[in-house]
């Protein structure tokens, strides 16, 4: 099967998973105790206004009728209107998604830029003082919650030294690179600690592999041995891990956007929760599930390019 066929197949496999997420969200939002209309309008709302809202939200119909129309909506990507903002959820999400994608994208790049050199230095000096220091740094980093790390960076680099804005976003792509740098660095540091730990182990294992000794015996320069043979092989498990970390990365983005007041989908999620805007929460969860699935697909494809043995499997 060609690479296009394989990607197509994987794309099809995303459908049932996302459908399952959609069903779960429906169950969660509709079947749990409590009347969303009362929760939304408060105890003192009049019966008439409650009835109107229920009708608007479609809660006056039977659960099965609601379910089918909901599934239809999800399938056609019409995720309904925001209850509080009266804007289509899809619009709301699409408006904010680019910022979040940019944030997570920058974070991933930064994380690799931090993790790969540190892991290399640690692995090459395995057991030495530098290795120990880097491992301790990783241990501390892994134990540091994203929001705390963000606050520290905010206090020192933005509020203290004034190198970066304390929050918000800029007017265009280039300006956003600057505005999003600190939040991206926050996310990146968290991700980098996980990657570094894993990559260090992988590098140490590969450094002891026989093919590295063979490459040395061929008379290749050390740089070529490390850069081509060692790194390439060690990246295979790291890319897998990077894929598995996408969930944490999205979760971290939700928190980081809150800390730095960035109007992305993560901030939208938290705001919608406090506003009890279930339509948005539901729609966002589904959209994020689709995104994560796409990242899994991307990781699989990169895996296939990095490691030819995967194609056979």
């Amino acid at each position: 099967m060609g690479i296009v066929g394989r990607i197509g197949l994987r794309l099809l496999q995303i459908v049932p998973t996302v459908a399952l997420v959609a069903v779960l969200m429906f169950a969660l939002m509709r079947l749990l105790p409590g009347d969303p209309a009362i929760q939304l309008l408060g105890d003192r709302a009049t019966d008439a206004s409650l009835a109107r809202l229920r009708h608007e939200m479609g809660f006056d119909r039977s659960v099965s009728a609601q379910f089918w129309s909901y599934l239809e909506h999800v399938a056609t990507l019409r995720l309904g209107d925001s209850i509080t903002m009266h804007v289509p959820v899809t619009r709301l999400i699409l408006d904010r998604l680019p910022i979040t994608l940019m944030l997570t994208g920058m974070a991933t790049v930064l994380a690799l830029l931090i993790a790969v050199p540190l892991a290399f230095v640690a692995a090459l000096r395995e057991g030495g003082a530098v290795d120990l220091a880097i491992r301790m740094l990783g241990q501390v980093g892994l134990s540091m919650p994203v929001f705390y790390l963000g606050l520290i960076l905010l206090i020192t680099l933005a509020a203290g030294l004034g190198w970066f804005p304390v929050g918000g976003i800029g007017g265009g792509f280039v300006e956003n690179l600057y505005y999003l740098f600190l939040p991206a660095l926050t996310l990146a540091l968290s991700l980098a600690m996980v990657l570094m730990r894993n990559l260090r182990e992988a590098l140490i294992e590969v450094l002891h592999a026989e093919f590295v000794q063979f490459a040395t015996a061929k008379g290749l320069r050390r740089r070529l041995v490390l850069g081509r043979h060692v790194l390439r092989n060690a990246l295979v498990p790291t890319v897998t891990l990077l894929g598995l970390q996408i969930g944490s990365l999205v979760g971290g983005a939700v928190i980081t956007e809150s800390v730095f007041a960035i109007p992305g989908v993560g901030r939208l999620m938290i705001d919608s929760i406090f506003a009890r805007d279930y339509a948005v929460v539901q729609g966002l969860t589904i959209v994020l599930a689709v995104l994560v699935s796409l990242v899994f697909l991307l990781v699989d494809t990169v895996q296939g390019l990095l490691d030819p043995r995967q194609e056979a499997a």
Partner: protein
Amino acid sequence: MSEVAAAAPALAGAATPGRTRRLPRLRPGPLLGAAIVLLLLVCAVAPDWVAPYSPLKFDYRGTLRPPSWAHPFGTDNFGRDILSRVIWATRIDMQIAIFSTLFPAVFGTVAGCLVGYFGGVADLLFRRLVDLVVTVPFLVLVIAIVAVLGPGLVNMYVAVSAVGWIFYARLMRGEILAQKRRDYAAAGRVMGYGWPRIVFRHLLPNAISPVLVFWMTDMALCILLGSSLGYLGLGAQPPTAEWGVLIADGKNFMTTAWWMSIFPGMAIVLAGIGFSLLGDGVAALVRRR
């Protein structure tokens, strides 16, 4: 290279002559982890003994004081002693570590045993469930559930438990599948033992180690998660002293009173390090078996 490897045990043997059965070496990492966790437990059990002040005592003449001998972590905007509040918050955060993981660990282990042993439709459904949980970011799923139930500690436990057990079950299922292929499981069946005896008396004890190790790591993760939700206002609610909530309290005084947020955060980092070092120790102990 096999010869270098072959020489290595010989070296280890030469280094410790005469000792036939080596005791588990006390490594500094796990020992430090145990000490940290013990300290946190003491703070959680008897905060009134450890804390120098009442965490609730207002002092309007001494607000936002920087760290000093009298108040090592400074005071907050109500003049409360931050060290005392951090110590009292330990109680809540330890509670989070335990309550967020207890149900998932127990239920997940049993569920994983059963799906792993019996397979069939239940296993099929379980695997779909895993796909689903992997696809939706854990924090997003927990936040979505908390959104429906309403913010608060108890609802957070419900949300984390509702999702968390799946990770334990997945781990356990894999272990049981591996153990099932071994001879002794077949031997149990041949001897006519019932499935509860085979699963819980024979398979479970052999498969439990990775779950125990994961439990330790999970406690650290849940402290991070619980404090994150506390910070976002979705977990513990003010005025409850919880590390994440304390950090959120200090957020507005970030530029004038950094100590309000920084010290509670250090407690989180310390707890995270403690539990993961202890987890490393447990992992090493389990591997020795």
